[in-house]
């Protein structure tokens, strides 16, 4: 029978008061840790997904929204910009890369992103199997999408209008999966990538009725589209007719024909992602973009910093709340131990008569606080990570970002140290009281 065992037995002998202290401590720790786990993963996501993009050129609107939408694939597009008119960025001598992207369709709420092969280089994307998209309506898909929907190379899928769950699908013109990307822990994992042409073709003959950015066009363009529409429909009907008997993917050559029918000047994209060759570009390029009709330049670094500045007070308030709960936990432990000590004064006196030294009695009480702290910590850590893991499913559904409960932070060591300090501080006064027990007087009183 060592002291540790007696301390342990004393804790489980009073399951209700020990349990309450434990629960309070664990709750405090859980709130702190879940906040840490979430904010850490969000800031990691933002770091991983920035792709070294210096500037996002998109349609006028909220700068933060255009960054969130085009770089982080969270928000909705601000609108469309004319591809032909982005030449100033593509040709600019201080621009390293100018990558056009087009967002507006989805496959079961996962985004279909039309772009060039350069887009992969932002995130170091690599092919796991198959190949990159080449001809229109070929798609190379992210690893998460492939796993989630069991899509394999050669499978066909229809894109839906807009970014949410959509009823209307491009059923007659289906994409073909030609490649699957390696998991990269970036936005790539949750995207279906295709060529810009795919989107232009799919939307060439459609009415403009859904939430995606493809549909926001000027009146002139609208009129031009109406004219083209007949022409496209014509080609379209031919296609349907030809392929009436088998549902194989339409011959790429026919897409060439449709594409030819779309005036270059009416081709639109959602945004242009820019990497500078030199930082001096930031003194000229954003200005040009902002002075171009209907366009706006947003610097991700600035927008994201502002976003975090916005979130920070909320995190502080949550942390403060957690602190209050931890303090209540400490108080509850203190009171529980002091109360149990009242009942146990005689016990302690008896232990002393059996040969226990004052130090031993002191250690025993202190150990009870220590053990409760360790238990509360373990419980808190368990709930946090498990909770985060369960919560991550919900986050993934909503944002298509992968979160996990199975990451460990170095802050968890600080929390452990904090918990132990709290346990020991709450036990200190009761332990001193036990240390000072007047054996003779205690024994005479009963």
């Amino acid at each position, binding site marked *: 029978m060592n002291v540790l065992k007696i301390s342990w037995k004393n804790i489980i002998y009073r399951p209700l008061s020990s349990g309450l202290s434990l629960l309070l401590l664990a709750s405090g720790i859980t709130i702190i840790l879940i906040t840490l786990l979430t904010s850490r993963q969000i800031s990691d996501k933002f770091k991983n997904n920035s792709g070294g993009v210096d500037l996002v050129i998109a349609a006028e609107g909220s700068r933060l929204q255009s960054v969130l939408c085009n770089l982080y694939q969270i928000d909705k597009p601000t609108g469309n910009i004319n591809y032909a008119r982005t030449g100033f960025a593509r040709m600019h001598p201080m621009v390293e890369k100018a990558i056009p992207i087009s967002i507006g369709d989805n496959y079961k709420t996962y985004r279909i992103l039309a772009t060039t092969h350069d887009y992969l280089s932002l995130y170091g994307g690599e092919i796991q199997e198959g190949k990159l998209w080449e001809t229109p309506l070929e798609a190379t898909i992210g690893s998460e999408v492939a796993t989630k929907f069991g899509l394999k190379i050669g499978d066909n899928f229809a894109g839906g209008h807009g970014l949410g769950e959509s009823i209307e699908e491009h059923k007659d013109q289906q994409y073909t999966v030609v490649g699957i990307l390696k998991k990269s822990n970036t936005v790539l994992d949750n995207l279906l990538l295709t060529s810009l042409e795919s989107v232009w073709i799919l939307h060439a003959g459609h009415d403009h009725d859904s939430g995606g950015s493809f549909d926001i066009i000027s009146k002139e363009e609208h009129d031009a589209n109406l004219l083209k529409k007949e022409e496209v429909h014509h080609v379209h009907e031919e296609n349907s007719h030809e392929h009436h008997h088998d549902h194989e993917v339409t011959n790429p050559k026919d897409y060439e024909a449709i594409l030819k029918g779309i005036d270059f000047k009416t081709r639109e994209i959602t945004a242009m992602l820019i990497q500078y060759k030199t930082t001096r570009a930031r003194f000229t390029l954003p200005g040009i973009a902002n002075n171009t009709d209907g366009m706006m330049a947003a610097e991700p670094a600035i927008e994201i910093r502002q976003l975090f500045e916005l979130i920070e007070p909320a995190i502080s308030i949550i942390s403060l709340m957690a602190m209050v709960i931890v303090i209540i936990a400490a108080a509850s432990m203190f009171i529980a131990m002091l109360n149990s000590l009242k009942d146990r004064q005689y016990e302690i006196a008896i232990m002393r008569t059996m*040969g226990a030294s004052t130090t031993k009695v002191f250690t025993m009480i202190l150990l009870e606080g220590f053990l409760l702290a360790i238990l509360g910590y373990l419980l808190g850590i368990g709930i946090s990570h498990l909770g985060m893991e369960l919560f991550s499913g919900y986050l993934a559904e909503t944002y298509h970002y992968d979160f996990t409960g199975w990451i460990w932070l170095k802050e968890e060591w600080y929390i452990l140290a904090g918990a132990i300090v709290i346990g020991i501080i709450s036990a200190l006064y009761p332990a001193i009281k036990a240390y000072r027990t007047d*054996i003779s007087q205690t024994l005479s009183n009963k």
Partner: protein
Amino acid sequence: MLLTKDIAFNYKNGNNISFQDICLEDESQALILGKSGCGKTTLLHLLAGLIKPTKGSIKLNDTELGLISGNALDKFRGQEIGIVFQTPHFIDSVSVKENLILAQTLAGNPKDLDKVQSLLSELGVLEKLNSKTKELSQGQKQRISIARALINSPQLILADEPTSALDDENCKSVISLLKQQASKSKATLIVVTHDNRLSNLFDIKITL
């Protein structure tokens, strides 16, 4: 041999009490009688080293209790003095067996389960080995507290009113067990009481 000389004690409230000298040979069994409030418990606590006399000396064989203190005194008490209290108290969170093992280890002795079992069987409470102390009757509790006082084979056994809560039958058997075990382990036994039922059971009687 237990020897006290000129001992006196000052209470916190200023009252003063002095005790007659006591001299007991090894293995003797003595009864200390006195009315309540005459300092019986104080004397017992002085003999157990739980409090220090303001003057005088208490000597148990070669050890002068006044000269050791702190951890050494705690350890000496654990090993050499067994105490049976008026109301038996235990560490409630552990079983009877663990209470007795605790008495061994707290005194610095190795854990000896055989001894725990043989002592409990001699006292007729072996079947309570794994019981919780809260589940015991008063008589059983007193038997187990005797076992606890004896577990380390002390030189001196002190019993403070061990029979006051017991009926006549239990009273007799507890005292005979106490006497029997004390002589078996060659310990000096001192029973402090105001219980006149006991006066015929002891040869040496000291009245305060």
